[in-house]
């Protein structure tokens, strides 16, 4: 049992980020040390939480010790633990790369924004409250706005404005969805929502269905599912390299939210029925097609990877839209794989861009770059993984997804044909940029001037590739673990009872103690405005009923 450690992935970066801004703003070296130390400890905490979650039932951390659904809870289960580990590993690689490539020198506050970003992402993965999910989305978005325009420049700022406006519109939609759901159910706690939605009469679900679809649209914007993918290519291409790599986890925040909400609150066997699957499946199929065609049609390397991200989101959503245990397990494996592969490719592409000078990332033959052979090999490995060719984990992931889709031969054809298109697309881009360079006479270009520690940058990108190799080697144990995760997702009763069982009785006891002057409420140190009114209404509504009975008991105590 992890107890208070559950909140560490949120609190640790939340402390570090302001410290980095306020104490170390003029000293890049200390900033770097603290940023790396923060990422390493975050990874250690995340691994410990994952070890605990893999043997224990879902565990609940009550913010300010307010019982659910009156207060906000964080819930640690296998899925959130998995996402925490993935985030921390990616964060560490990105921080190392930013230091090695000198990106953190090219503008202010890179490391503190990175820590705020980690705080938002970790919080979004941990929270068990839908409104709190909105708040953490905003935290991670506002940090990502800063990171996106890091070191400025005309194109980056213009793409940044579009990115911000697109996501602000998404946030507004999120609030509309939450308002709709709250007006029907009277709660925003996910476990409580699951219970309340399950109890609704089948002919009164119109509004809650509207809310469910609105939420799906919001998460589709985050996940860059077609038709909400327009923000992604311009954002990822114009963002600094390490930031684009970090954004590989941002689309997965949307995917995570879809998986969480539509297995817990609106499961396929609940009152909303196959609503989510009906919406998701076509969107996933079109995303996959458009993404992979984009890989083939893109005119620069960055866009090749950006479109591959859209395609990979489509692939994993094909699996998740089945809402079966086997398919969800396969989808989770592919999700971990594609996050690492996309991040590795964005870092490699950034290394290429640094070394190619004025040609930039355009897919045209140009002279050899500094350390050309190593970069070619790394791009080759990343492309194999992303396109899903053997021997790396992309192949295994697609194989598992195909296995789970057995019988739906149309989807098989789609996955296989789009994989072929992606292979052709990556092959065309890679052979033009890396292979044809040997046909051009002359010495390789000199080393780039700015890279402060190129070895570290290569190590960071290589570490992500090594992660892919590890995923391939340990595919057996990993996929068993993910199958158990999928089983936990599709039997949400454990999650719900971890949050809700006995919560009401404990809240009543705390209430009674509070009235006797033992001062429960004085201890509350909550960081969010919402929970306090929760207590004021619902606890007291119930209390009102019992009130006449309690009055004689409390009166003597008050008289003292």
């Amino acid at each position: 049992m992890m107890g208070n450690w559950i909140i560490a992935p949120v609190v640790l970066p939340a402390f570090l980020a302001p410290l980095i801004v306020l104490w170390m703003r003029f000293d890049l070296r200390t900033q770097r040390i603290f940023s790396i130390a923060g990422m390493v400890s975050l990874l250690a905490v995340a691994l410990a939480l994952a070890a605990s979650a893999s043997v224990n039932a879902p565990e609940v951390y009550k913010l300010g010790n307010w019982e659910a659904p009156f207060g906000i809870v964080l819930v640690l289960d296998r899925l959130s633990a998995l996402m925490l580990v993935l985030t921390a590993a990616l964060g560490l690689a990105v921080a190392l790369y930013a230091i090695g490539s000198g990106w953190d020198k090219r503008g202010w506050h890179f490391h503190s924004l990175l820590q705020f970003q980690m705080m938002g992402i970790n919080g979004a993965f941990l929270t068990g409250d839908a409104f709190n999910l909105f708040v953490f989305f905003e935290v991670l978005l506002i940090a990502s706005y800063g990171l996106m325009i890091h070191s400025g420049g005309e194109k980056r700022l213009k793409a940044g404005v579009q990115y911000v406006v697109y996501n602000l519109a998404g946030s507004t939609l999120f609030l509309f969805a939450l308002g709709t759901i709250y007006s029907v159910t009277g709660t925003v706690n996910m476990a409580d929502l699951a219970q309340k939605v399950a109890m609704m009469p089948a002919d009164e679900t119109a509004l809650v269905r509207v809310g469910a679809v609105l939420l799906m649209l919001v998460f589709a914007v985050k996940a860059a599912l077609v038709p909400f993918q327009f923000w992604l290519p311009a954002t990822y291409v114009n963002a600094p390299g390490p930031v684009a790599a970090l954004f590989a986890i941002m689309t997965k925040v949307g995917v995570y939210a879809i998986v969480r909400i539509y297995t817990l609150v609106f499961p396929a066997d609940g009152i909303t029925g196959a609503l989510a699957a009906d919406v998701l499946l076509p969107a996933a199929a079109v995303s996959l097609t458009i993404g992979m065609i984009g890989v083939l049609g893109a005119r620069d390397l960055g866009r090749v990877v950006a479109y591959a991200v859209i395609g990979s989101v489509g692939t994993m959503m094909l699996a998740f839209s089945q809402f079966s245990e086997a398919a969800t397990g396969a989808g989770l494996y592919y999700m971990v794989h594609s996050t690492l592969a996309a991040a590795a490719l964005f870092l490699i592409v950034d290394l290429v861009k640094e070394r190619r000078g004025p040609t930039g990332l355009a897919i045209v033959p140009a002279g050899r770059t500094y350390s050309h052979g190593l970069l070619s090999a790394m791009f080759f490995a990343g492309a194999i993984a992303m396109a899903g060719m053997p021997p790396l984990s992309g192949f295994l992931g697609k194989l598992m997804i195909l296995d789970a889709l057995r019988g739906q031969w149309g989807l098989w054809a789609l996955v296989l044909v789009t994989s072929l298109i992606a292979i052709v697309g990556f092959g065309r881009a890679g052979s033009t940029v890396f292979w044809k360079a040997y046909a051009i006479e002359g010495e390789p270009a000199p080393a780039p001037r700015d890279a402060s520690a190129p070895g570290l940058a290569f190590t960071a990108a290589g570490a992500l590739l090594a992660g892919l190799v590890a995923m391939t080697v340990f595919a057996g144990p990993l996929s068993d673990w993910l199958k158990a995760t999928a089983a936990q997702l599709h039997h949400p009763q454990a999650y719900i009872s971890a949050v809700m069982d006995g919560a009401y009785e404990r809240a009543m006891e705390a209430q009674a103690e509070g009235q006797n002057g033992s001062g429960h409420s004085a201890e509350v140190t909550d960081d969010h405005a919402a929970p306090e009114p929760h207590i004021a209404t619902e606890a007291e509504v119930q209390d009102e009923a019992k009130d006449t009975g309690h009055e004689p008991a409390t009166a003597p105590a008050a008289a003292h």
Partner: protein
Amino acid sequence: MEALVASAVGVMTAAGIYLILRMRTFPVVLGMSMLSYAVNIFLFASGRLAVNLPPILDHAGAETQGYTDPIPQALVLTAIVISFGMTAVVVMLALGSFVEAGNDRIDLDEEEAGQ
């Protein structure tokens, strides 16, 4: 009153959507503000409309007088703070992009957009 609130939300949402589809940053920022006003009022209404009632249950009067649901007010408070901050961010970004690019068009040309 329901009709008034509902039409206010509807009109502001329509105006907001029209404005965020404009080509220049200033109308887009205005449109985002309109949309956040609309959603704030919508969130208020999600707790049912009640006038002149306390957001707290007191032991004496709750059953006779009724009360108004305080949770949406807390949600709206959070939403207002966040949308205020976000508007400030988008204004600064739009200014920065205007200074760098010399125009305030929000669309990207073909090369920038990655088509």
